[in-house]
């Protein structure tokens, strides 16, 4: 049977020099989390192991399996400045803004 593809919910924050993505990925194996930036897309993947077969489900309200979510980041992100950490079922990805996306102050000369 094909494993269920799960889309983790996300909170997105913006600060002066970065964007922060916070994703709920309960039960994920830290070693198998992948964060990839390529072709203006950021991809987040992870896997949460289901319980072993010796356990018979009596009732089920949520699924565990493969997590997948894709974000379009365009030119706003400096791909060299991406950090991710996983703690207690929550994945936090910090994306440094490219110079293009940082707030700029432009001085206007008056003649």
């Amino acid at each position: 049977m094909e494993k269920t593809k799960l889309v983790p919910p996300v909170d997105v924050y913006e600060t002066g020099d970065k964007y922060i993505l916070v994703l709920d990925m309960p039960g994920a194996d830290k070693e198998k989390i992948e964060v990839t930036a390529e072709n203006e897309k950021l991809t987040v993947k992870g896997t949460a192991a289901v319980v072993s077969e010796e356990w018979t489900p009596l009732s089920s309200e949520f699924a565990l399996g493969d997590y997948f979510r894709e974000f379009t980041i365009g030119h706003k992100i400096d791909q060299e400045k991406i950090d991710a950490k996983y703690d207690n079922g929550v994945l936090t990805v910090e994306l440094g803004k490219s110079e293009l996306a940082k707030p700029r102050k432009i001085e206007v000369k008056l003649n």
Partner: protein
Amino acid sequence: MIYNPVFEWETLRNVADRLFSNLGGYQTSGYDAAPANLYDGKDGYLIQIAAPGVKSEDVKVDYSGDVLTVSVKRAIETDSKDEKKLLRSERGNYDFTRSFSLSDDIDIEKIEAKVMNGLLLIHMAKKPESKPKKIEVKVK
């Protein structure tokens, strides 16, 4: 609304994204509960509750009169500040209590709960006499 940690159909999420993307609003009220899975095993029962970002000190598990009561509080950052603007909010907070009626084959001395990787796991051992027994019958 029961908190749903995941959406099984990405397309559905995309449809919802399109529907709401122009509203500029987001849910801030949080959720009523977190979802739970129940399993039956050879030596016990297992309750699995999705609780990403929940600290172990914010979980309370009580047992009384064949009823297991579980309280879970999630208090993640949800506010938007000038220096850290919230652009999109899909995760919410909750503070709920759920009760599970236990069958009488549970050894109440052996109920264990732990928070691991964003999952609250409650393991309840079965009493030895309720395990399936294998009795060898001597044939004379």
